[in-house]
């Protein structure tokens, strides 16, 4: 069974009488353990698609089945629980809480789970160590470099051990070296079995994935395996 199964998915925005179609009848499936990139120019609907797949937005017509459950039948609170436990988000602009420590930023998703408070710190510490930030736990988020901020965001996305990680232009605000370090983390996570969906407009970034879904004007115009995959290493160097 696929992790994600999308059938004839459409999304339109209504503004009074004006109806703007954003996604037009998409059909695709993503298996557990895949590393897929959704690629397209701005305005192609890739962010909207990610929001729908990540339970932040609802579809207008069609069907979205996640791990065997029809998402359109879920209530608001059930959707919140899916966001809490089944997916993790990494955003282009990091979205860390200002004036808050690295540790507390990573803890944030735990507040909305049934986890008991005494276990929070240990879990957050482990997640931060896995992205190489074990030495920065008590720094304020504002004091970090861009690459470090994005790694905190990845630790935050990982903390509830979700089946699926969404990365929305994760390297967009980073220099190329930090960007490669971040991509390396995603490739490692994928190697450990996480399903990763990367949203980007850059062909080069998309080529770090195993598969590229191309969107144009809200329609799926390509779905191919990456033949010449980019492989990042932890020092910010590329190896082929």
């Amino acid at each position, binding site marked *: 069974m696929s992790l994600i199964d999308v059938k004839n998915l459409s999304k339109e925005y209504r503004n009074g009488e004006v109806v703007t179609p954003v996604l037009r009848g998409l059909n695709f499936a993503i298996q557990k353990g895949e590393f897929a990139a959704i690629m397209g120019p701005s305005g192609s609907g890739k962010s909207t698609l990610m929001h729908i797949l990540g339970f*932040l*937005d609802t579809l207008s017509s069609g069907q979205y089945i996640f791990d065997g459950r029809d998402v359109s039948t879920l209530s608001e*609170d059930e959707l919140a629980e899916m966001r809490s436990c089944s997916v993790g*988000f990494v955003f282009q602009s990091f*979205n860390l809480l200002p004036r808050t420590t690295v540790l507390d930023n990573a803890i944030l998703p735990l*507040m*909305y789970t049934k986890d008991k*408070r005494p276990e929070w710190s240990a879990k957050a510490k482990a997640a931060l160590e896995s992205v190489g930030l074990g030495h920065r736990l008590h720094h304020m988020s504002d004091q970090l470099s861009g690459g470090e901020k994005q790694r905190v965001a990845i630790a935050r996305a990982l903390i509830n051990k979700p089946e699926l990680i969404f990365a929305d232009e994760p390297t967009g605000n980073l220099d190329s070296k930090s960007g490669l370090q971040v991509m390396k983390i995603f490739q490692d996570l994928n190697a450990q079995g996480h399903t990763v969906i990367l949203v980007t407009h850059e062909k080069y970034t998309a080529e770090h994935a195993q598969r590229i879904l191309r969107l144009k004007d809200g329609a799926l115009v390509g779905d191919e395996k990456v033949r010449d995959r980019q492989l990042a290493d932890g020092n910010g160097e590329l190896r082929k």
Partner: protein
Amino acid sequence: MHYGNSMHCSWKTLAANKARSFLSMLGVIIGVMVVIIIISVGAGAQSLILNQIKSLGSNLVGVLPGQSEEKGPPVAALGVVITTLKYEDGKAIAQSGNPHIIGVASYVRGIDTVVVGDKKTDTNFLGTTASYINVEDANVETGRFFTEEEERAMGRVAALGSQVAQDLFGNDDPLGKQIKIKRTPFTIIGVMKARGVSGFQNQDNQIFVPLPAAQKLLLGINHVSFMRVKVDSGEYVDSAMDFVKQILRAEHGITNAADDDFTVRSATDGLAALTQITNALRFFLAAVASIALVVGGFGIMNIMLAAVTERTREIGLRKAVGARHSDITRQFLVETVTITLSGGIIGALFGILLSVIAATVAQNLGYKWDLVVTFSSVLFAGAVSVAIGLIFGIVPARRASRLNPIEALRYE
């Protein structure tokens, strides 16, 4: 999200914005402080008044004209003139032969500017009976008080309160001199010993004249304002009150107690009525002060609405990592209540401090002022602070919970 976690988060947010948190608390701080001070100072002033009344003596029975409600103040106390009590009523009580009634004094009162030579003073003149000296335990400094014969004969004689004597004659001896009250000459026969302020009345700024003279020559009336009956001991006050009522009913030809045209009260009754009045006054003042609390509440609502807008991205993020509507609502509600409750606690502390200072100052000035800070008023302040947080926090909290997470995440 558990309440403990919400509290913890709120503290961190508040601590991160110390100046703003303090300013937003200010309205609640001031409101709670004022309410506590008013309740406490009001209770202190009340104790002061009641202590003074008690010092008048608990074995006095007052007779006032007009009927009164069971517990309420007599209408005569509210300034309505009722003319049902007469000079003869007092005489009837005095001559009734009740062994426990040891004196009856009747009173009328007027105000005039009294002139002697180049000195003048605004003063009260008190038309009373010769029994005044006995009933009120007053003493004469020099000279004498008027006699019952002078009283009945409408004698134009006067005794001066110590302050009046000082104002009009300085160090001269006033005895035998004449003063004019309402253009009627009176001969001064005595000066009273100083008594100080008692029961709202400066006893020393009065001129004492025989009651019939005051009625006929000065005021042109034939009723008395009130009477005081002195009972030999506190334990006979109740029976003496019943006795006085029977005498007055007989005098006025009343057969049914419901038709009474007078009110008989003991000092204890007076205390109860006064306590009721001052209590009403205190709660009225406290109600006015709570307007400050409402204003503080709106201030906090305003600040929280601004905070919701400012923290739009944070709210979006929290939703993206799994916060439900109710989690966001609770977070902002707890944050608002944390602000108002902290403000309430600070305000209560300042209020208590200022009440203690007020009481200390009053006590050092020689007043019998009790420091009254009740646990219930502090509890009330705390409950009101929490209520204000909940009432004024709900609008910002709901607005926050309804933010669309996608738009909130994109918000710059």
